[in-house]
C-alpha cells in the first residue's frame, strides 16, 4: 500500500492504495466518481480521459500513485454552480452525443485541444480528437461543437 494525496475536482483526498491501482479505478471505485467511464483495456478509446495537472490523460494508463500530489479534474468538476462550460453547452446544442458514453472523455480531450489550438480548423479538430472513439455520432456534430466554442472565443 502506498499513501497518496490527490486533489480531485477541488477536494483533497488522502488514501492508501495498491501500487498497481489505476487512476480510473481509484476515481470510480474508491472515490465513487463514476462520471468517467471505461471503454477499453488498451488505452485506445479515450472514454476515461481526465485532466492531470491541467493536461488531458487517459486515466486507464496512469496509476493512482502517479497522481500523488497532483490535481485531477474530471467531467464532474466542470460545471460550476450548475452552470455548464461552453463546451458542455455546445455539445448539447449541437447534438454531439447520443448514448453519451464517450462524452466525458470527448469533452476533456476537446478542452485540451482548444487550449493548444484556440482556433482550430475542422481538420485540426478531427486530428485533435483522434484518441477518442465514438460509435454513435459519426463525429461530425462533435467537430461542430468544438468549432462553435472556438468561434465564441473569437468574438468574446
Amino acid at each position, binding site marked *: 500500500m502506498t499513501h497518496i494525496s490527490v486533489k480531485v475536482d477541488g477536494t483533497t483526498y488522502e488514501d492508501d492504495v*495498491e501500487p*498497481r491501482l489505476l487512476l480510473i479505478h481509484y476515481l*470510480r*471505485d474508491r472515490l*465513487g*466518481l*463514476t*462520471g*468517467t*467511464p*471505461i*471503454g*477499453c*483495456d*488498451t488505452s*485506445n*478509446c479515450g*472514454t476515461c480521459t481526465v485532466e492531470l495537472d491541467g493536461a488531458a490523460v487517459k486515466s486507464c494508463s496512469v496509476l493512482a500513485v502517479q497522481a500523488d500530489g497532483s490535481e485531477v479534474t*474530471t*467531467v*464532474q468538476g*466542470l*460545471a460550476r454552480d450548475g452552470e*455548464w462550460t461552453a463546451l*458542455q453547452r455546445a*455539445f*448539447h*446544442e449541437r*447534438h454531439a*452525443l*447520443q*448514448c*453519451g*458514453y*464517450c*462524452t*466525458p472523455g470527448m*469533452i476533456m480531450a476537446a478542452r485540451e485541444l482548444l487550449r493548444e489550438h484556440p482556433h482550430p480548423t*475542422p*481538420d485540426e*479538430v*478531427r*486530428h485533435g*480528437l*483522434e*484518441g*477518442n*472513439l*465514438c*460509435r*454513435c*455520432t*459519426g*463525429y*461530425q*456534430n*462533435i*467537430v461542430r461543437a468544438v468549432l462553435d466554442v472556438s468561434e465564441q472565443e473569437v468574438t468574446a
Partner: protein
Amino acid sequence: MTETAQREVGRARPRKEDAHLITGQTNWTDNISVNGLLHLAILRSPMAHARIERVDVSAALERPGVIAAFSGRDVAEEMGSLPCAWPVAEDTVVPDHPPIAVDEVRYAGDPVAVVVARDRYTASDALEAIEVDYTPLPAVLDIEPALAEDAPPVHSDKGTNRSYNYHATSGDYEAAKAQAEVVLTRRYHQQRLIPTAMEPRAVVVTPLAASGDFTLYSSTQVPHVLRVLLAVTTGIPENKIRVVAPDVGGGFGSKLQVYGEEVITLVLAKRLGRPLKWTESRAEANVATHHGRSQVQDIEVAARRDGTLLGLKVSLLADMGAYLMLLSPGIPVLGASMYPAIYKMRAYDFSCTGVFTNRTPIDAYRGAGRPEATFAIERIMDDLAAELGMDPLELRRHNWIRHEEFPYTTIAGLTYDSGNYEAATDKAIALFDYDKLRAEQADRNHRGDTVRLGIGVSTYTEMCGLAPSRWLGEMRYAAGGWEAANIRVLPTGKVEVITGTSPHGQGHVTSWSQIAADVLGVPFEDVEVMHGDTRLATHGMDTYGSRSLVIGGVAVHEAARKVVDKARKVAAHLLEANEADLEFAEGAFSVKGSPEARKTIQEVAFETFTSHGLPDGMEPSINAEHVLDPDTFSYPHGTHLCAVEVDTETGAVHIRSYVCVDDVGKVVNPLIVEGQLHGGIAQGISQALYEEALYDEEGNLVTGTLADYMVPAAPDLPEFVTDRTETPATSNPLGVKGVGEAGTIASTPAVVNAVVDALRPLGVQDMRMPCTAERVWQALRSAKEASA
C-alpha cells in the same frame, strides 16, 4: 382533428437526456454499487474447439478474497440453455447452449468457469489459478468448409453444421431468366464485424433474500424481453425479477441479447445470496458479445438490354457462429424481403442456409439483415449498369417504383405505403453536383491520372418496425411486435409518459416528450419520460430494429389521444356541455361558439384528482394506456452518393464527398434524425473501408482489442452532407417511418460502388470489404497481371 396545431413535432430540440450525460451524473450499469457487492470474473476458452476433460477450481478458492468458484458442470442444472427465439424453418437445428460450457468449448471465448471475489482485481487474478484440461478437437472456422461432407461438426450431437435451409419464391425465376438478354451472377462477402458499443456490457444483480426478489441491472436494449427469458431459463418466477436498463452506452443490436453472463450473474447471486457484479473488459467484449454480418452472398440478376429487371435470385450462406443466439437464424431471413428493394421485377427466388462455425455467435447488428441485402442489390445494380453501359442512376430510375405507383406490393410481398424516390434522388444529385464529378472522372481516366475518382450510388429502402405481430408469427418469431405506452396526467397537470421502448442513445425522452406535448397541448418541459425498468414500464418490447419511433412513438401519440378523449368527458361535465360541442385546442377544451367557457387539461386532471363532483359512473382518471400493433412495416428510403479518390500507387481510398437525401417520413426532431444518420453512415463507411474481425488459423480472434480492431476515429471519416425529403407514412397517424439504421444500410454499397467505379477502367471488377489500401493495391496488381 381536434388537437392543437403541431408545435413540437418537427422542431430541432436539443435533448433533455443530455444534461446528466455531459455532467457525468451517469448511471451506467458498472457505476452501480451496493453494500456487500461481490465481483464475478469469467474464465474463457483459449481454444476454438475442445473437449473439457477436467476443470479444477480448488486453487482459485484458496486465494484470499475469493468467495466462490464454479465450473459449468457445477451450475448446469440451474441455468438451462440460452434461448433462440427465431428458428426460421421447422427443422432448424437448435443446439443446446449452456451459459458456461459443460463438456465442450465451441469458440475461443466460450465461458468455462467463474470466480466470485470481493473485488474485481482479486476475481480476475484468481482465474489464473483455475486448471482446465482440454483435448483439442478439430475446428471449422469458415462458412463453406463447414458445409463439406467431412467437416468436423461444431456440435457433435447434431452431426451437421447446417442449422437450417430457408427458401422462398415469388413468380417464376427460371421463366424470367429464360426471357432475359443479360444474366449477371456475382458473389459478395459480408465480413464479420464486431459491434463495439463504447460501453462494454455489465450486469449487477441484487437479491432480496427475504422475499426471493431480484433486481437485475444490465446494459441491455431489451429489459422486458430479458425478464421473460431469464424467468424461463432459470425457473425464477417472472414477477420476482425486476430488470432495469439504466443508462446504456450504445447497443447497435449487440445488447438485444439474453447473454450467458446475465443468467450466470443472476443464478450465482441467488446461490450466494449476495449482490454480484460482472463487467466486461474490452478484450472480453470482442470475443463474448455477439458479432455481426458474416455471409457469403450469391446473387443473380436477369434483365433486358434496355435495363429492365426481370428477376432476382439470391442464395446465402449465413454464418451463425458456434451457437444460435436470440435472433441469429432470423437475421439473414429478415433481409430476404429486402433484396428486391425499390425495384420492380417479375420473379424472385431466395434461399439461405444457416451454418455453424467455431467462432463467436452472430446476431443482429446495425440494420440486421437489411444492410447485407441492400449491399448485394445495390452492388449488382452497379455491376449491371456497367455491363449495359448505362449510368447507374439511370438504371435505377428505369426500374424503381414511381411516385404515383404507391402503395406498391413488391415481388417479395411487402406493401410499401408511400415513397418518392425521384424527389430524393434529384435533390441528392443537385447537392452532389453529379455531372461535374462525372466529367472530372472522365478527365482523370482520360489523362491516366494516378489518382482516380469513383462515384458510388445507393438508392436504398429500409424496413422499420419489425411488426405486425401476425407477420412475425408467420415468420416463426417467438414474440410480438407491439409496443406499449402509458400516460399519466398528475394532479398538478404535469405529465408522465411511460414507454416500453428502451433507448440507448436514440433520444426517446426528447422525441416522446415532443409527441405527447403536442397531442395534450402541454409544455414540452412539463413532460417526463420513463423507461427501461420492468417495475415501471410494465410491458414493452424494447428497442431494436428501428422500431421505437414507428411503434413506440406512435403508441405514445395514441395514448395521448386516449387521454384527451377521457378528459373530454370530464370537461363536458364541468362545462355542462355536450362532448360533441367541445373543441380541444392549445391544451384546453372550450364550448364551440363560446370560447370563454374553457377548461384546461391541467384543470381537468385536478378535477379527477379530487373527484368531488364527478357524476356516478365517470372514472376518476384521465390516465391512459395504448398498446400498438401496427398493420405493417414502414419504409424510409433515400439516395446516398459518395465520391472517392483512389491513389492507384498506394491503394489508399479517400472519401472526397458524401451526400445523402433521406426520406424518413414525418420528422419529429430534425436534430436527432440528422445525428442518427451521421452515426449510421459512419458505421457503413467503416464496414466498406476499415473493419473486419480476423481470426488466426487456430480460431483465435486476432482483432481482440481496440488496438487491433479498427474503429474509425474522427480523422478517418469525412463531413457528411445530409438533407431530406418528407413523404409521410400513410400507415400511422404520425406519418413517421423511423431512421436508426438508414445510414448504415445505405452507405456501405455507396462507398464500395465508388471504389469499384474508380477502379473499373483499370480492370478491377469487384472489391472485397473492407477496401483497405492493401486490398485495393493487390486488386490493381492482379488486374494488371491479368491484362499483361
